[in-house]
């Protein structure tokens, strides 16, 4: 850790965020520094996806390229795993290359994708259609597509939601090994404490509005400190979701 604070990649300061008239989050002031590993936590409906979308839009405005792994994975079910991953770099190839790649992949591209697929455990599935895959396998394809984009910054909306904790930990390590900076929405708080440097917790305050309730370094934090982000299910959950 250097003493002087590096200049932030992004400073997102907005008094409200939402879809149309519906306000999801209020009073945002978030700085994103290079090299940070940020875990976004919060009950479902707390606004994690909304915040990620906003970060992504703001980064795009500043021409900061970011790998993006959306919650609904945005895969094309009829295409093969290889082609779905290749789509991560459509903007970097010529039209002709993209067209021919559908008919006959180039060995160089095929190898590059295979190299990514090996550690993800989906190298044997590259010719399969995505619609034939299980939920966990699809999630790996979506991660592979994000990795294939080859950017320094990774934004992920619950990219490890449908795999077991051990695999989730491996996938996060892989994502971190390939990206200097990452912002990842999670719902496993243990992962947040072991693999991330900073936690942003979202939730509703007494006024019923969504806010950033927590924005701290993970050093010394225990899972118990995060409990308040997940209010007891029976009384509050239903109102939170709505």
């Amino acid at each position, binding site marked *: 850790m250097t003493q002087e604070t590096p200049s932030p990649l992004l400073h997102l300061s907005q008094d409200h965020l939402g879809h149309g008239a519906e306000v999801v989050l209020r009073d945002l002031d978030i700085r994103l520094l290079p090299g940070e590993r940020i875990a976004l936590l919060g009950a479902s409906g707390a606004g994690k996806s909304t915040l990620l979308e906003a970060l992504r839009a703001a980064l795009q405005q500043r021409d900061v390229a970011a790998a993006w792994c959306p919650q609904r994975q945005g895969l094309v079910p009829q295409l*093969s795993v290889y082609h779905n991953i290749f789509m991560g770099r*459509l903007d970097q190839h010529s039209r002709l290359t993209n067209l021919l790649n559908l008919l006959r992949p180039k*060995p160089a591209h095929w190898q590059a994708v*295979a190299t990514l697929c090996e550690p993800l455990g989906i190298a044997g599935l590259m010719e399969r*259609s995505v619609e034939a895959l299980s939920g966990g396998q699809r999630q790996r394809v979506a991660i592979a597509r994000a990795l294939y984009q080859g950017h320094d910054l990774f934004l992920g909306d619950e990219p490890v939601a449908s795999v077991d904790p051990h695999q989730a930990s491996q996938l996060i390590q892989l994502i971190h090994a390939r990206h200097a900076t990452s912002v990842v929405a999670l719902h496993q708080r243990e992962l947040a404490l072991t693999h991330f440097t900073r936690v942003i917790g979202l939730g509703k305050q007494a006024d019923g509005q969504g806010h950033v309730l927590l924005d701290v370094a993970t050093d010394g934090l225990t899972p118990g400190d995060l409990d308040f982000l997940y209010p007891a299910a029976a009384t509050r959950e239903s109102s939170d979701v709505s």
Partner: protein
Amino acid sequence: MSADPSTMTAELRHPPRWWQARSDGARLLHLGGGLVIAMLVLVPFADLSVTSRDPWQELGRMLTGLASPAPGALESPLHALILTIAFALWGTLLGALIGLPLALVYSRSRLLRGICAGLRAVHELFWALLLLQVFGLSAATALAAITIPYAATFAKVYAEILEQLPQAPLKALPWASSRAMRFVYAELPMAWRRMASYTRYRFECGLRASVLLGFVGLPTLGFYLESAFREGRYAEAGALLWIFYLLIATLPWWGHRRVLPVLAIASLWWLGPWPDISPTLLWRFISHDIWPAPLVNASFESLTSGELATGLLQWASHLPDLLPAIGNTLLLGLLGTAGSLLIAMLLWPLASRHVGNRLSQHSTNGLLIFLRTTPELILAFILLLLLGPSLLPAWLALALHNGAIIAFLCARHANQIQLPPSRPQGKFECWLYELNPRVAPGMFALLLYRAETIIRETAILGMLGVVTLGFHIDSSFEYLMFDQAFALLVLTAILNIGVDSLARRLRPSGEISEDSCVR
């Protein structure tokens, strides 16, 4: 993760050869490529000559007629219009009512599939020609000619829609749920929109069929259209075409689901005339007229003495030379299918909101409306007048009409797709990787469904003088040789069923699960 290419297995180092690719997309690619290659190989065997002397002058006269229509010269356009709508509406409605219960057992009953394939395989016009001998020029002929093949089509298509539903809600039902309850609670709610939109589309086809019924003498728009065209009164023909285009174009308004029941009941008033059916004549027709004479007079003695066999052979020797007709039918069917594929692939992107711009969307939509609204028989008729009698006008008409129908449905499907926010930047890439893979299975399913329709349409093009099987059917009816006409109809049906089963085998199967892939 430090995978070194030299340590990789061959499978990872090299992509699969194109003919070995196994993904669904690759299979469709092989299918489409195969069709187009077959088309290119077979084109030299087709008679595609242009024989007319001055096609451009005739085209000019037709376009002048279309540009300066003379609605005042028409005899009773309103009555023809109302009859056209009434036949289509009641024909489709009765067809759907009969087809829906059949769809529930369709995939389980081989017999039902066979019967439906047989009924569907005969074009509405030939049903009309056949029924005409019994019911005369009456509403019964018109309604039955539409209802019979449509019921069989609805049974097949509804069954296919049900087949493609996501299976999870069905499996979640209690084991003991009856077929009817499964349908009402799980299948119908999921399938309703697709079934309703298909029925609506079919009604539009019904309107076209209803117009065509005029070609055999029923007093719909087509009756006046045909005589105006044949006698070169192009201004009147133009007026009738415009009436028909307006009818189809305004369908969203007058075809609203609240208006249609009112229209259906009101149109009953005009539906007619109803025939006097003589049971003895009907029985004579069914039991005697349509069968080869040796078969009708057959007895046990004639069977054992071989008299029946020789009689049938002699009867068969009077049939026209069928091999060229069958060859032409199949050839035209294949050329029409491949041509439709090319036309559809070219036109749907231009008409979709993700790929086309506003100008291309509007102009392509206009072209698609023109091509799919004009009945293929009329399209072929016009092209025939321009190019002379060969396979060329028939091929163009089939490819343009069916290609436009497929392109329209594909564009609509594409417009319903919500592209993910992470979609590729360029329109070309969007089309290639996001839209095409999603649209193509539906497109091929439609195309292979249309392949059967196309084969069926090659038959009615015979009425224009293209020597397909339909040509011989038409002339047999003309000479009142019902036994020969019926035998040829059965032969045509068998040919269609063969093509249908081939198309069914090639049709992309498997539900398209979009659950994690929607956005």
